[in-house]
C-alpha cells in the first residue's frame, strides 16, 4: 500500500524535476516543477475531439493504457511492505500488463489511419521488442540469484549475500535507467521536444489524442518514470527499516530524475538506425549480469 502512494507522490514531481534540470543546465529560466501536473489538470478539464474515421478502439485505448501502467505499479513492493498485488511470477505480469497497454496504444495509433502514426507505432513496437529481453534476463537472473520469483521476495532477500550483489545491483540499476528511457521514449532514443513527425516515436503516436485522453497518456508517462524509479530504488533499499528506506527512496527517485535530465541536456538523439544496436547492447549487458549470477552461485552448467 505504501509503495503505490510513494510512486504516485514521486510521479507528481518526476517530470517536473527532469524539465527543471534541463532548463537549469541550459541556462534558461524554465517552467516550475509543478508545470507538468498543471498541464495534465488543464487537459483533464477539456473534452476530447474524435476524428470521424476512428472507431471504439481509439476511444478505449488511453484509459486502458493508463490503467495498465497503474496495474503495473501495484505489484511493486517497498522495503518490507508488499505491493497490493503480489504473487509468484509477478514480474512477468508486470512486463506483460505494460505490453498490453502499449499494444492498445499502438492499435489506436493504427486506427486513426494516419501514415505518420503507423510509422511511429512500428518504431515504438520495435524498440520495446528489443528492450524486453534485457528486462527479462535482468529480473530473471536476480530471480535465479535469490531463488524467488516475485518482486517482493527478490528484493527483500537480495542483499543478504556478499558485496557482489551490490555490484550486480548497481549494474542492474544502470540497465534499468536506460530501459526506462527507452520505454518512456526519452532522449538517446527519442526526442520528446522534436517538432518533425518523421523523427518522432512516441509523440507521433498520440498526435490525434486530445483533451482528457491526452491527459491520461501524459500522466501514464509520468507514472511510468516513477515506477521504474521505484524498481531501481528497491534494488538498493532491500529490507531496510522505514526511517532509512523512505529518504533513500525519495533520494534515489530525485537522483534518477536528475540523471535523466542531465542525459537529455548533454546527449543528442541517436540516428534512427543506430537505436536497435544501442538497445540490444542493453540485452548484452544484462546477459553479463546473468553470467555474473551464475558465477556467484557456482552453477556453471
Amino acid at each position, binding site marked *: 500500500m505504501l509503495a503505490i502512494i510513494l510512486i504516485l507522490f514521486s510521479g507528481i514531481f518526476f517530470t517536473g524535476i527532469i524539465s527543471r534540470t534541463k532548463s537549469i543546465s541550459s541556462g534558461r529560466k524554465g517552467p516550475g516543477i509543478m508545470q507538468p501536473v498543471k498541464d495534465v489538470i488543464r487537459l483533464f478539464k477539456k473534452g476530447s475531439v474524435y476524428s470521424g474515421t476512428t472507431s471504439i478502439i481509439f476511444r478505449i485505448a488511453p484509459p486502458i493504457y493508463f490503467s495498465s501502467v497503474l496495474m503495473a505499479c501495484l505489484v511493486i513492493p517497498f522495503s518490507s511492505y508488499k505491493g497490493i498485488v503480489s504473487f509468484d511470477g509477478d514480474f512477468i505480469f508486470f512486463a506483460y500488463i505494460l505490453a498490453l497497454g502499449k499494444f492498445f496504444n499502438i492499435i489506436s495509433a493504427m486506427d486513426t489511419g494516419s501514415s505518420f502514426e503507423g510509422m511511429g507505432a512500428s518504431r515504438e513496437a520495435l524498440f520495446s521488442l528489443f528492450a524486453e529481453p534485457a528486462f527479462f534476463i535482468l529480473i530473471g537472473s536476480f530471480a535465479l540469484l535469490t531463488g524467488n520469483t516475485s518482486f517482493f521476495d527478490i528484493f527483500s532477500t537480495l542483499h543478504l549475500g556478499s558485496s557482489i550483489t551490490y555490484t550486480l545491483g548497481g*549494474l542492474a540499476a544502470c540497465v534499468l535507467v536506460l530501459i526506462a528511457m527507452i520505454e518512456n521514449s526519452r532522449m538517446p532514443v527519442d526526442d520528446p521536444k522534436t517538432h518533425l513527425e518523421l523523427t518522432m516515436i512516441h509523440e507521433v503516436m498520440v498526435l490525434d489524442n486530445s483533451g482528457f485522453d491526452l491527459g491520461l497518456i501524459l500522466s501514464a508517462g509520468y507514472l511510468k518514470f516513477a515506477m521504474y524509479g521505484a524498481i531501481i530504488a528497491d534494488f538498493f533499499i532491500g529490507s531496510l527499516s522505514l526511517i532509512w528506506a523512505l529518504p533513500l527512496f525519495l533520494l534515489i527517485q530525485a537522483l534518477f530524475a536528475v540523471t535523466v535530465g542531465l542525459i537529455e541536456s548533454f546527449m543528442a538523439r541517436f540516428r534512427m538506425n*543506430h537505436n536497435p544496436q544501442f538497445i540490444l*547492447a542493453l540485452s548484452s549487458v544484462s546477459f553479463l549480469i546473468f553470467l555474473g549470477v551464475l*558465477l556467484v552461485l557456482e552453477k556453471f552448467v
Partner: protein
Amino acid sequence: MTNVLLIIFIISLLYVSIANRIITYVRVLALQGFILFGVTFLQLKDIQTWNLVLILLETIVFRAVAVPMFLAYLISRNKITRETEPYLPHFISLIIITMIVVITVLLANSIQDTHLDKIFFIVSLSTLFTGLYFIASRKKIITHVMGYLMIENGVFILSLAVGNEMPNLVNLGIMLDVFASVLILGIFLNKLGDVFKAVDVDQLSNLKDY
C-alpha cells in the same frame, strides 16, 4: 572488486563493437590499460618496489597513456577519417561479440582444471577472439593495430589466469611485442600516409596479376 573490473572490461568490448568513431577505440584502449592495472594491482600478494614499477610501466604508462597518445597522433597526422568503416553492420558485430562471450563461458566450463581462474580465462579468451574479429571485420589498417592491441590485452589477462604470480619475463615479452608492433606499424603507416593519401585495405583487392 577484481570481478567488477573484469565485467567492466567485457562491457568495454561490447561498447567498442558498436562504436562509430576511431577515437572511441583509442579511448577504450586507454580505459582497458587502467583496468588492467587495477586487476594486476589487486592480484598482487606482496608489494615489491621493482615489481610494482614494472607493472606501472607496463599498464599505466604504456597501455593507458603512451600507446593511445601515439595512436591519436597517427590518426591526426595521417588525416585518417573518423568513421570506423566495418565490413559488417554494428548490430551484427554486437551479436557476434555476445556470442563470443557466451561460447567462451561454455568453453571455460568444460575445462576441469583447478589451477585455472575461470573468470580471468573467460575474459582473456573473449578479448582474444574479439580482437581477432576486429582485425577481420574493419577496413582500416589503424583498426587492425587496435585489434592487435586488444589481443595483447587478452594475452596479458591470460598470463594472470594461469599463474598465481606473474612471470616477469613473460610480461616483458608481451611489452616488447606491443612496443614493436605499434612502432613498426606506426612508422609504416606514416610513410604510407606520406606517399598515398588513402590507407584502406580494400584497395589492395584492386591489385591484379596481368
